[in-house]
């Protein structure tokens, strides 16, 4: 695949992500404004961070005027799941891919972009990543901007509908491999069931969503790896 085709493919897959991002970052923009940030600051924050939970938590810390150290720790804990995702992504890159690409791919390793990149068949073409980032990241920034300048441009119904865009995209990523592999289908079902239990059961529901993802990933992906090891040729 050449650069151009990969980039264009990435841009197409980036559209649902951008739409979903706008719905979320719109809310972020409103909250950023309430926390006293200017439109420029809010958009800069969105463009440089490109993460949802971390940014919302960050606003709380800014409002509380807490220390920079506290800010760093909060971000580390909330965003630690990206570490696991980057580990997985490291194996999707061809060893012949020039090293510098990793610095740019890392910037865009969000939950959603990781989702589409890691579940693509074969090795990851860096320009596919760039295509997704080129559409998704402006969507995230633009939504933030809209949220700051006016809390009422998007009606509630539209926001609500866009609210499922990202989940729809996740489903589009996990369903086809579940169809062709019973093991993956099992992993998906067990993960969803476990996630439900962790959301509803007292005590377990005290665990933050970031740690829930890490914990369940270690347990379920670890269990699946022990029970159903993937032969070298399949693991791509």
């Amino acid at each position, binding site marked *: 695949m050449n650069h151009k085709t990969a980039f264009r493919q990435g841009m197409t897959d980036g559209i649902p992500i951008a739409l979903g991002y706008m719905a979320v970052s719109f809310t972020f923009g409103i909250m950023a404004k309430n926390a006293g940030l200017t439109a420029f600051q809010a958009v800069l924050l969105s463009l440089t961070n490109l993460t949802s939970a971390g940014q919302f938590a960050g606003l709380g810390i800014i409002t509380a005027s807490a220390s920079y150290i506290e800010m760093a720790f909060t971000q580390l804990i909330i965003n630690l799941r990206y570490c696991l995702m980057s580990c997985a992504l490291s194996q999707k890159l061809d060893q012949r891919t020039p090293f510098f690409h990793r610095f740019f791919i890392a910037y865009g*390793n969000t939950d959603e972009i990781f989702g589409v990149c890691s*579940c693509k068949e074969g090795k990851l073409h860096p320009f596919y990543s760039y295509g997704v980032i080129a559409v998704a990241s402006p969507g995230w920034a633009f939504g933030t901007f809209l949220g700051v300048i006016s809390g009422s441009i998007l009606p509630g119904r539209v926001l609500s509908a866009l609210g499922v865009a990202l989940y729809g995209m996740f489903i589009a990523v996990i369903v086809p491999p579940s169809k062709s592999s019973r093991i993956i289908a099992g992993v998906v079902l067990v993960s969803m069931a476990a996630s439900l239990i962790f959301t509803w059961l007292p005590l377990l529901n005290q665990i933050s969503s970031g740690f829930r993802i890490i914990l369940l990933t270690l347990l379920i992906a670890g269990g699946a790896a022990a029970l159903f090891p993937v032969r070298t040729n399949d693991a791509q």
Partner: protein
Amino acid sequence: MSHNIYIYIFVMAGVTYLIRLLPLTFIRKEIKNTFIRSFLYYVPYVTLSVMTFPAILSATQNLWSALAGFAIAILVAWKGGSLIKVSAAACVAVFLVELIL
């Protein structure tokens, strides 16, 4: 003591970027260990599943529209729809159900 907003933004962006960058730069070689390879192979399916469900059920204004969006997304994805098709179908389903309810 008042804090500078730009330093806050810098700290946030720096920490988040490093978490994403370090594993990508440290793990440069293909991992040979079958267990770790298999583990990393399963990681995206678990993370995406955990993030989707049950969070999708509370992503809209009411449970029914969310369930409709969820069901339609699975159906369209099962039929082999592209990312954008599945995502758009889910959004439209939510919108229509909320118009009716």
